[in-house]
């Protein structure tokens, strides 16, 4: 098995690109038609399709094993690439612009920019509590941005609330960033960046956003194969249940024999943390009596390799008929990078009580972290497609 060429030149990590140059990886043709057929079917069926696959299937691979072969964090090589992008700029004594904008897709649970900033010892400006953003008509309370060394604002989406009184703090922050005499790295999720550009003219102060290069088939393969080889005690192979093919096998020209990673790249929109979650959810333990490769109850074959079966990727399907409340909730959660139930009520035009959030949690689109509600990374492509189909204002990634 030969190693394919890395996206970065000569072993160096790839650097970030302007967000307008982000190209989502294409799906394999067969997968494209299969999904088109599913959509048409969903459109003509009167009954609503089951939103996600059966939950019991998700338990087949144990968490310990998953952590061995697809270890967290789900950030992939992005942190290294971020340093490769910002390192030279931070080293400049008199940069042309003192602000750098990093725009990332939503559902980043690892805090990539924050992790990078801590790793390199940069100052971090934490966002205030959301409750403090609604400061009525007084001046917003802003942190002191003066000082030495680079300053990092990892999540600009935490600095506002889409509420008639929730924009003052972010306006004040942007104005302060504009005049501060030190280098500032501003991180923002792609949906919030579009909103803030429209609502408070963030794009006038912040320079053009940069983002990672989309994780296509080979980038995903490089990363995931590296993750699975990190645990030396286990010799894992990933096989397709249909034919027993090893999805990591390469042809002589270095291309992958199976379409698994191409499908994963297309379905995950080239976002590594989405692909990471999808990949983990697709792995299964155990043997299938119809397959040629015989494995024992622990998934070990005669050649003492542990086999994980790569099942079809989860299908998250939003109802085909227009359910505005569901989409408004999902849009608000994506836009803010997570909200509590009380904050959600503040930003939605809801009338009366609603059980939508509970339904979305049950269907797997939303998860609860303590009191914070967030969209699941694995469901993000389906949510994005649903919002786009309904005509919501979109991000650019």
């Amino acid at each position, binding site marked *: 098995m030969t190693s394919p060429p890395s996206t970065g030149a000569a072993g160096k990590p790839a650097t970030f690109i302007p967000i307008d140059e982000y190209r989502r990886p294409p799906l394999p043709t067969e997968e494209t038609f299969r999904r088109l057929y599913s959509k048409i079917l969903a*459109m003509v069926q009167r009954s609503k399709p089951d939103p996600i696959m059966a939950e019991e299937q998700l338990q087949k691979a144990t968490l310990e094993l998953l952590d061995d072969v697809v270890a967290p964090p789900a950030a992939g090589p992005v942190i290294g690439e971020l340093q490769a992008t910002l390192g030279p700029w931070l080293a400049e004594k008199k940069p042309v612009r003192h602000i750098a904008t990093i725009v990332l897709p939503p559902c980043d649970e690892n805090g990539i920019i924050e992790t990078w900033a801590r790793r390199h010892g940069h100052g971090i400006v934490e966002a205030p509590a959301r409750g403090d953003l609604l400061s*009525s*008509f007084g001046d917003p309370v802003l942190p002191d941005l003066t000082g030495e060394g680079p300053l990092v604002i990892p999540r600009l989406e935490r600095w506002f609330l*889409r*509420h*008639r*009184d*929730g*924009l003052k703090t972010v306006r004040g922050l942007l104005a302060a960033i504009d005049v501060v005499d030190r280098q500032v790295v501003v991180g923002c999720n792609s949906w919030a960046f*579009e*909103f803030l550009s*429209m*609502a408070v003219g963030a794009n006038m102060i912040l320079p053009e956003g940069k983002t990672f290069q989309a994780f296509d088939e080979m980038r995903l393969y490089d990363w995931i194969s590296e993750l699975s080889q990190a645990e030396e005690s286990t010799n894992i192979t990933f096989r397709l249940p249909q034919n027993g093919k090893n999805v990591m096998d390469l042809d002589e020209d270095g291309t992958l024999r199976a379409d698994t990673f191409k499908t994963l790249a297309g379905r995950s929109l080239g976002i590594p943390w989405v692909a990471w979650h999808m990949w983990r959810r697709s792995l299964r333990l155990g043997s299938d009596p119809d397959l040629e490769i015989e494995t024992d109850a622990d998934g070990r074959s005669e050649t003492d390799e542990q086999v994980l079966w790569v099942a079809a990727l989860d299908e998250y399907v939003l109802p*085909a*008929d*227009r359910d*505005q409340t569901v989409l*408004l909730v999902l*849009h*608000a959660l994506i836009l803010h990078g997570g909200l509590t139930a009380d904050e959600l009520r503040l*930003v*939605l*035009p809801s009338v009366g009580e609603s059980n939508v959030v509970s339904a979305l949690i049950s269907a797997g689109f939303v998860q609860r972290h303590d009191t914070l509600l967030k969209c699941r990374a694995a469901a993000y492509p389906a949510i994005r497609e649903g919002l*786009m*189909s*309904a*005509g*919501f*204002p979109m991000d650019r990634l």
Partner: protein
Amino acid sequence: MDGSDQSGEQAAKLLNDLQDISFWQIGLVIVTAWLVIAGARLILPYVADRGPSQFRLYFLGAVPIVRLVVLFAAILWIIPIVFDITFQNFLVIAGAASVAIGFAFKDYVSSLIAGLVAVFERPYRPGDWVQIGDDYGEVRKVGMRAVSIQTPADNAVTIPHSRIWTDNISNSNDGARTLMCIADFYLDPRHDAALMRSVLKDVALTSAYLDYARPVLVMLSEKPFGTHYQLKAYPFDQRDQFDFVSDLTVRGKLAIAAAGGKESVAAAVADMTSAAG
């Protein structure tokens, strides 16, 4: 005697011989045309409502075009089967039709011709929000003779196309997916107008229904009884217009109160009275 024989001979020549007219072929053309039109009327609006929002108006707008093309093709197919088409026969048919239309079907044919014009000029298309006379609503169907609109009160109103000869057609979105919505506020004039404009603008900017690509405007004008604010913005989907205006109004009232503004009932009543007058 010679004259009546001649006209009888002409009439006989106008139509093909009965045994030469293929009635099953005519029937087949009519049934096929009807099936295609009915199918288009059924399927295209269905797909428009359940498919991607960005294609909705294209699907809806295709219905009258499909109907027109199919009808035209069916008529062109049937005419040579029934009639012996020569220049003289054409003049005879046209003359007879003119008399019939002139005396009996003037209004009906006027609507049919206006319907033809409406397909090409497109003063309204399915999915558009139009005001014709006193009726405002979404165009649901553009038929051969009339247009059907559905009002916000869920009434179906049928309006003959011939109204386009005499009435102004006010089209709110003109084929676009969005349209301008206006929320009105009437305030006691003793307030900080600059603050109020800024507050109302934030109300629109933070609406969940807002179309980011369109501008948000706050206009004000002084009336004898107070200050009239108009908050103008676009929802990302025209079907949300009433929810959008309600959202702007509810949150606008809260924002005005929080900013120290006081709504003026007298100004609102005066403005409504002048509008009605």
